[in-house]
């Protein structure tokens, strides 16, 4: 992979998003929910970085904070060398052309009162109000072609389409300004199996054709293995492990990553494997465990783990440095 040689188009440094929570009583001190707590990564041109984790791990919040749809509490989002943290709506507007988002629920992400032509055109007319109506429609038809929609459907309404088609409409809207980065927030988890593959392939094609970078947020490890170059595993707002795809799946270093991978049921009755089943549930992000945040469900946790939060450390086995990082004290013990 040569993508690492260039400067990243997006750098996230120690990003934190905390929300104040109302604890109910009038007198108690306000608590904070640490949805994202110190996440750092780089995204390169033409690369797909997947963010995996269970619901409530902060992956969607992370995606929105990267786009500055939510303001982060601490840390930096650097877009092509320039910090965009704390930009106002106005300051962000010119940058929005280059970063877009695709949502989980294909129908809910389309305004039901607008035709799909109007929906796809909206970013275009927002950023290029000078364009004439027919020019806009031509561009929309072209875009519909690219994402695999028949252009004569331009005057139809979202509810007349199936889920997979609605997701294509959402992709067309995100693509019409030819952005550099698209945040994909669980784009296929609401779709039928036979349609998921269509959308995954489409995203792959678009990436190849336009050199897109994707931040692919998902809980489905099988899909992530298909689409990503690199994978980041998130747990309660903290990065547990980040690595190139094959490294992560072939030699997961973090006990959480191992459990996640082993929990996926293989579509093959011959391999009814013994799973590493994690005990218990996700702890509350309002009162996270001390030290290593995963220790309450970890098979290997001991005294050391409850003392201090482990740092992300390099554990690369291949030549490239810093490609495989893991936040765990026990990697040596687990691998002897």
């Amino acid at each position, binding site marked *: 992979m040569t993508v690492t040689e260039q400067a990243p188009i997006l750098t996230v440094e120690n990003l934190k998003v905390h929300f104040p929570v109302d604890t109910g009583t009038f007198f108690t001190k306000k608590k904070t929910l640490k949805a994202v707590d110190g996440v750092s990564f780089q995204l390169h041109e033409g690369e797909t970085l997947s963010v995996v984790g*269970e*619901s409530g791990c902060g992956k969607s919040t992370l995606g929105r904070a990267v786009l500055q749809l939510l303001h982060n509490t601490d840390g930096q989002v650097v877009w092509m060398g320039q910090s965009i943290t704390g930009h106002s709506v106005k300051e962000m507007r010119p940058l929005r052309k280059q970063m877009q988002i695709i949502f989980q629920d294909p129908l809910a992400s389309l305004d039901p009162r607008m035709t799909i032509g109007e929906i796809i055109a909206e970013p275009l007319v927002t950023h290029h109000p000078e364009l004439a109506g027919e020019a806009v429609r031509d561009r929309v038809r072209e875009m*519909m072609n690219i994402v*695999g*929609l*028949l252009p004569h*459907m331009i005057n*139809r309404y979202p509810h*007349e*389409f*199936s*889920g*997979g*088609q609605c997701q*294509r409409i959402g992709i067309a809207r995100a693509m019409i300004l030819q952005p550099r980065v698209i945040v994909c927030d669980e784009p296929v988890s609401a779709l*039928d*199996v*036979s*349609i*998921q*593959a*269509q959308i*995954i*392939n*489409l995203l*792959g094609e678009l990436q190849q054709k336009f050199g897109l970078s994707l931040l692919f947020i998902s*809980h*489905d*490890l*099988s*899909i992530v*293995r*298909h689409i990503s170059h690199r994978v980041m595993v998130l747990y309660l707002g903290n990065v547990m492990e980040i690595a190139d*795809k094959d490294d992560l*799946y072939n030699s997961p270093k973090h006990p959480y990553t191992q*459990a*996640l*991978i*082993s*929990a*996926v*049921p*293989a*579509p*093959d*009755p*011959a*391999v*009814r494997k013994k*799973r590493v*089943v*994690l005990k*218990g*549930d*996700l702890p509350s992000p309002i009162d996270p465990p001390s030290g290593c945040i995963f220790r309450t469900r970890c098979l290997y946790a001991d005294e050391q783990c409850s003392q201090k939060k482990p740092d992300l450390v390099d554990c690369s086995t291949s030549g490239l440095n810093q490609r495989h990082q893991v936040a765990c004290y026990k990697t040596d013990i687990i691998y002897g």
Partner: protein
Amino acid sequence: MNENSIILEVKNLNTRFDTPDGEVAAANEISFTLKKGESLGVVGESGSGKTQIFMALMGLLAKNGKTTGEAIFKGQNILGLPVKELNKVRGVSLSMIFQDPMTSLNPYLKVSRQMTEVLIEHQGMSQKKALERSIEMLELVGIPEARKRVHMYPHEFSGGMRQRVMIAIALLCEPDLLIADEPTTALDVTIQAQILDLLHDLKDKLGMSIVMITHDLGVIASMCDHVMVMYGGRVVETGSVQALFSDAKHPYTRGLLQSMPRIDGDHNEDLYAIPGQPPNLQALPQGCAFQPRCQYATNLCQQERPQTTEFDAGRTASCHQLSSAFHASSPVKNNPVNVVEGVL
């Protein structure tokens, strides 16, 4: 366990809904049998009618739905039973759990109340005995500190715990058959693994039969003995899980198997994708429902609905092209047709 005792036999079940836009046939000519202690997986896309069959069995169809046919459960036809009679069966020897545990639990009642009610109602237990039994059940499904937790409200449980509570309630009267409708779809993988293991254990421990309705072939593979594949309101293929996964007969089943992204497979090629969109039950295509998306479709497929062919006992498929060339070269290679659709 008696190998041959059939617990549920469904014969020619049809489910129709009256809608303002005409009648919709949600399930057609469904027949299958389920033996004691077996688990049956029912796979299909949304709108394939997989849920409606079992809603019909439970007498839970929407008001505008009606069902014909027979469903012999433990020697008694439960289709069209009056509610009073049906209540002696459902929730007692026939239970169902749903995808979203929160919507099927009453948020205003404590779990203890929701559990003991069933026992007091159906088995005439005393309040105290019912509570003991409820706690036992919660422990069985792996809820820690069940004695304390039983007095909590549903919203105080996490998603996985709520699904466990649902399972515990469904199991209270030790049903002979548990119908699980997408029980793990709303849950995270690690929790899904816990629930699947739990169901597996319970099935062995209690000797009950399970129907697993899902769209996830991984769940089917890890958990079921037999599989029934549905498409457009009809059964297109049935078989044992081994047969179906190793030698799928119907092009739709094959397509499904190939389009599953696999965590252990080859990841550098495009995924195989079945072209087109899931069928609209209100406007099913002529002939075979799968024909517009099928790469082997011929004129015959467009005109006539295929008959069901039986290969072995319990191994069937409904396709015109079963004997034709594509079965010689299995498995099918990646489909060269690019996925472009948009036809409503």
